């Protein structure tokens, strides 16, 4: 069935929130290097979905693997990143394991992870991770051992029931004791509660922002949102991010009301599933020259909090204020963390095969692009099954083969060349290159 091309033109304009996001990002970046001198803790690891727990010991910064990833990725041909990955392989990691985590280990072995941009050596205070993906968990273990810092690891069950709630609660309580012992600081429940409320607010508001992308025209593209999301990644527990995401939501709502679009035209709307190659964010703009647009995908939804209505529809979560949630004690806070986790686990992004399909329907998209991320076993869980389901339902699907963290897996010609995987797919949908479709 031929897809209906929408040739309507829409107004577009720059985001007023953009400078706020950049300012927050810059502040966070420098905070990483100054946190210790200001009495806070520098934390290694990828436990970024549960950072509020750490706030009880004071100010924190958690650059996770991102210390130099972006800088290395921006060297010509992402050469710096390739060197990091190869360093890890020389140490003994295989060619076929997670590229992003290999880059993390490579940076560590190169000494980059313990060096600030000003050339000063830094020593993390401890490592924190929640068991999820094997590559991430084992990399954090390696990193903690290599740097010589204690490791706090929380086991997250894959199924939620009363037993797993009890298990998590007991682990969180132990973790607080561990934090007090390792840092010598008294745990401050007020800070935990404040950080958690901020984070819950941000996650709910981010989901509301992403939900607005369902509108035609979309008020932002996936590429816009990918950048606008940055404060939500590692510092959604601070008040400035709460203010930022509220402002972003208002701006997006205003754009919807006034039909301000992301790029002036959306001949076809597409979803992009799985993280794009992180060193090639421009790939998310590849439909633009065809007048098409990537609207959303699992990487955007991951930073929001969602809930289900009685009829099974998935909708943005209400904010704690809207729900009337009162968190008064440590136990309330820990239970709220567990509730959030239960929703995430039960949401089953990777445990079911229908999320790609549902997203395509919910966001009014015409076709789906899937990044077959070679070494990422976690995001590839059920990816092929999801593709089959989309095809069964008659939704066109295109795939391209690469890796989020290893630039050697990105074949420019094969993916973006004239007869590459993506241009060929766009053309198969009935799209042609447009002379005047570039976004501002």
């Amino acid at each position, binding site marked *: 069935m031929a897809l209906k091309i929408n040739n309507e033109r829409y107004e577009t304009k720059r985001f007023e929130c953009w400078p706020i996001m950049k300012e927050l990002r810059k502040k966070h970046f420098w905070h990483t290097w100054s946190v210790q001198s200001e009495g806070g803790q520098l934390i290694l690891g990828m436990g970024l979905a549960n950072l509020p727990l750490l706030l009880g010991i004071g100010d924190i910064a958690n650059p996770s693997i991102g210390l130099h990833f972006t800088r290395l990725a921006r060297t010509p041909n992402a050469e710096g990143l390739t060197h990091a990955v190869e360093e890890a392989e020389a*140490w*003994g*990691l*295989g060619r*076929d*394991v*997670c590229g992003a*985590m290999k880059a993390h280990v490579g940076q560590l072995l190169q000494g980059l992870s313990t060096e600030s941009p000003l050339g000063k050596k830094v020593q993390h205070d401890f490592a924190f991770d929640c*068991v999820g*993906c*094997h*590559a991430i*968990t*084992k*990399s954090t*273990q*390696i990193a*903690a*051992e290599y740097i010589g810092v204690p*490791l*706090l*690891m*929380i*086991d997250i*069950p*894959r*199924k939620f*029931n009363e*037993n*797993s709630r*009890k*298990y998590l609660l*007991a*682990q969180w309580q*132990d973790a607080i004791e561990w934090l007090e012992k390792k840092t010598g600081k008294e745990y401050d429940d007020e800070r935990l509660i404040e950080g958690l409320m901020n984070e819950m607010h941000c996650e709910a508001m981010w989901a509301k922002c992403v939900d607005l992308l369902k509108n035609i025209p979309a008020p932002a593209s996936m590429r816009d949102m990918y950048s606008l999301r940055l404060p939500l990644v590692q510092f959604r527990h601070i008040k400035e991010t709460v203010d930022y995401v509220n402002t972003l939501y208002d701006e997006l709502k205003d754009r919807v009301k006034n039909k301000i679009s992301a790029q002036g035209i959306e001949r076809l709307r597409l979803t992009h599933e799985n993280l794009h190659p992180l060193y090639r964010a421009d790939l998310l703009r590849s439909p633009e020259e065809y007048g098409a647009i990537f609207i959303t995908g699992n990487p955007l939804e991951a930073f929001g909090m969602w809930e289900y209505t009685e009829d099974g529809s998935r909708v943005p979560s209400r904010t704690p204020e809207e729900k009337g949630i009162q968190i008064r004690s440590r136990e309330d806070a820990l239970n709220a963390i567990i509730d959030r986790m239960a929703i995430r686990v039960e949401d089953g992004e990777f*445990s079911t*095969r229908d999320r790609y399909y549902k997203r395509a329907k919910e966001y009014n998209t015409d076709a789906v692009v899937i990044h*077959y*991320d*070679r*070494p*990422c*076993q*976690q995001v*590839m*869980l*059920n*990816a*092929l*099954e999801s593709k*089959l389901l989309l095809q069964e339902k008659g939704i066109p699907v295109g795939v391209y*083969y690469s890796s989020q963290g290893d630039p050697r897996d990105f074949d420019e010609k094969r993916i973006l060349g004239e007869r590459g995987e993506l241009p060929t797919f766009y053309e198969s949908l009935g799209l042609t290159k447009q002379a005047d479709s570039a976004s501002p």
Partner: protein
Amino acid sequence: METMKEINRIVTHRHEVAKEWKTKTGGKVFGYLTIDLPEELIYAAGILPVRILGSHEPEVITDPYMWNEVHCVFERDCLAQGLQGRYSYLDGIVNASRDPHARQCYFSWGYHCPVSYSYELQVPAVLNGRHALSYLSGEVADFKHSLEEWTGAPISNDAIDHAIEVYNKSRGLIKRISEFRKGDIPQISGAEFMEIALAGLLMDKKEYNPLLEQLIDEIPKRVVNDAGGTRIMLAGGPNDHIDLIESMESMGAQIVVDDHCTCGRYYMTEVVPGDDRLEALAARIINKPRSSLRDLPERTRHKHLLDLAMEYRAQGVIFMFQEHSDAEQFDFPQCRDYLEEHNIPTLQLEISFTNPIEQFRTRIEAFLEMLQAREA
């Protein structure tokens, strides 16, 4: 040895063996995808648990569901058997692994080879955590409840006690067989041991135990010449490549012990019976030697491997793991360094459906020569 012929028949004709059992007993058969499972509970419910294994034939049938550039060949090979209908006699499938490859196999099995019962048991990843035992005991209780609902009959304490006894007996007997490899001249080869161990994953342990007893009787009577091989330990995840082990031994390796989850590690830890039977079953899983994934946050696996190598006087360790196994690969450098610090050299081989035996030969022979030169 006559009994080895029967062992070989069981491994070679595993599906017929399971089907014969089903016909003979009228019971149900479940396939499982990992060893972190209280198999005794399934057995106590009157169900025969069999480990799903591949056939080592190149295949493309799984390509639409599991991607050959990301999913490990072991699990793809397992799914291929299901898709080809070779496990059509299964009544249920159980997974207790967090490994995304095993989970994909489990999910795809459910989509394309539906069975009347399927269950994912949650096993903690941080096994040495203070609350791991109570959590796992609770999950084992849920699993028991689920089995009871499906069979429509309660699982009695007597049945669990009997299952523990039968399974512990297998573990004890296998240990005794393994002892025959400790001497200067091992009485059985690594390939034979692997075949014996695999047979136990594929049949009723009640019928398996007498075979092990016969072997214990037969092995000391056989005449084994000193082949002068180099004593090697194997380590890694699942490995059922008997032919590859035979080839390695023909090159001069003497496989004296292994830590593969489909082989030696499966039998290493017994259930310590207690009043709380479900906790006793959970405790075995908690206390058994760690896999690469679950060796968190403090490492115990490298010490376990060293102890095993020392106990069996292995001169070197060959790590054999599946392509695309993140957990094994991220664990390998630390294990390698630890063993080498203790003067035990290592070699790493990535295994697949079929293996490039001549490429491996170059590497294995060089490794063995290096070990021999150290001994000289």
